[in-house]
């Protein structure tokens, strides 16, 4: 069983994966129902489910979920649309890399969450501010990851294309872009995951809707069941978007898996 890289069957894989979730919930139940942790600070699983149902049926939580999803997707899409071409240019042309790389590497470490107070001053507490937080969080990361992939393109493929008569523009369009499309898509998938963290931070301060807004409201009411339900909803949406992204990547880039 503990031989490195020894493959396991499909059934075992599912059993182990689901089993750990069961273990996690069992541990949580033991801690709360067993009285080891005060209910004031940590709700038990059943309370969490009941709170969740209350949120969905009575408090219009679906609208909050939709708002949050919209903000993540919107901010992320704008960031990706601008950052991917810049990243490709940076990975391809050395002068652009020399000019932008130091700044982008610096900007990448600027924490998006620390921009929230500043962005409220600049853009108010409307949707623009939420989108901007996600944009800042995603933009520089995408540039660097895309530039990294493009910069590492197999040189022999580029040389082969040149000997086949490709122009400099042809190299970018017909070698660098298709060769790195799967890596770029994979980078986007990772950054989308991080964008979920930023959106909640943005919604914790100065928002009137969204999952983060619900969470900060629930804190005031000591409704830990609602908070946990909100966190779990984010986890599930993340899981779904990740699976969708993966499926689309596999379908688009089947040449990699063939």
């Amino acid at each position: 069983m503990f031989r490195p890289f020894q493959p396991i069957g499909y059934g075992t894989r599912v059993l182990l994966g689901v089993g750990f979730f069961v273990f996690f919930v069992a541990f949580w139940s033991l801690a709360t129902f067993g009285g080891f942790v005060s209910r004031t600070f940590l709700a038990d699983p059943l309370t969490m489910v009941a709170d969740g149902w209350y949120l969905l049926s009575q408090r219009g939580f679906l609208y909050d979920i939709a708002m949050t999803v919209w903000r993540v997707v919107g901010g992320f899409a704008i960031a990706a649309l601008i950052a991917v071409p810049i990243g490709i240019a940076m990975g391809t042309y050395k002068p652009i890399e020399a000019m932008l790389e130091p700044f982008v590497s610096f900007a990448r470490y600027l924490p998006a969450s620390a921009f929230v107070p500043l962005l409220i001053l600049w853009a108010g507490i409307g949707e623009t501010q939420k989108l901007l937080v996600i944009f800042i969080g995603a933009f520089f990361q995408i540039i660097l990851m895309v530039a990294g992939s493009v910069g590492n393109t197999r040189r022999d493929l580029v040389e082969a294309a040149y000997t086949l008569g490709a122009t400099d523009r042809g190299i970018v369009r017909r070698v660098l872009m298709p060769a790195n499309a799967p890596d770029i898509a994979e980078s986007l998938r990772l950054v989308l995951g991080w964008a979920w963290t930023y959106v909640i931070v943005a919604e914790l301060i100065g928002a009137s809707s969204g999952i983060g807004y619900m969470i900060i409201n629930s804190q005031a009411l000591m409704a830990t069941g609602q908070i946990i339900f909100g966190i779990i909803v984010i986890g599930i949406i993340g899981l779904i978007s990740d699976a969708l992204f993966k499926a689309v990547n596999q379908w688009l880039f089947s040449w990699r898996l063939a």
Partner: protein
Amino acid sequence: MSELVIDGVGRTFPGVRGGKPTTALQPTSLTVPENDFVSILGPSGCGKSTLLRIVAGLDHPSVGKVVLDGREIRGPGSDRGMVFQSYTLFPWLTVEDNIGFGLREKGVPENERREIVADYIDRVGLHGFERHWPKQLSGGMQQRTAIARALANNPKILLLDEPFGALDNQTRGLMQEMLLGIWEREHKMVLFVTHDIEEAIFVASRVVTMSARPGRVKSIVPVDLPYPRHYTIKSSPEFSALRSQLTEEIRSEAILAAQEQ
């Protein structure tokens, strides 16, 4: 009348981290007339690949120049097709799209492109694999596609950099016959770099041997074996004589190269 003239081409690489510069290739001259199939044979590190890359325009000479049809080579171009030792098919394109890559880049209309691609698929025996991805092909099939891809562009000269080096012996023999068969019909200039003596003789009309680092041309041996050549020619007395002669020449260079390392 096509002609390739390598005129005093040498290449020195600058030293790394303040080290001494390395001379990979001493000034070398060689003229390849139309229809000539030249093998370049030498121990590893003799600069034979460097010479080929310079002809391809992927590297530039430190001294001298390469002239193809009266025009000095300044960069890569579709008039010189190249097949590399590493597998360089574009993994995101199918076999037929790989072969058609250069034609598309040239702007050849799709109908015409299809015809040319189908023709070369036939010639390299890849019928039925048109829609396969490179990953699904064996090494030999990948190199056959790479040869078809280079030829579909209709280059004046075909540059082959140890294209069969990574293949097993049997596949390599079949590939040599296929390449020779194509050349016997097409009669293009070919520069074929290899370190395999038998391979160098079998495919070429002349074998150029190179000395150990820094490389230079040591001898040029004509191969006067009749065409079309059948693989059984490898066991003929004439072939054996050539093999012995070239083995002697390369052996002393290989010993020198081994001592350097």
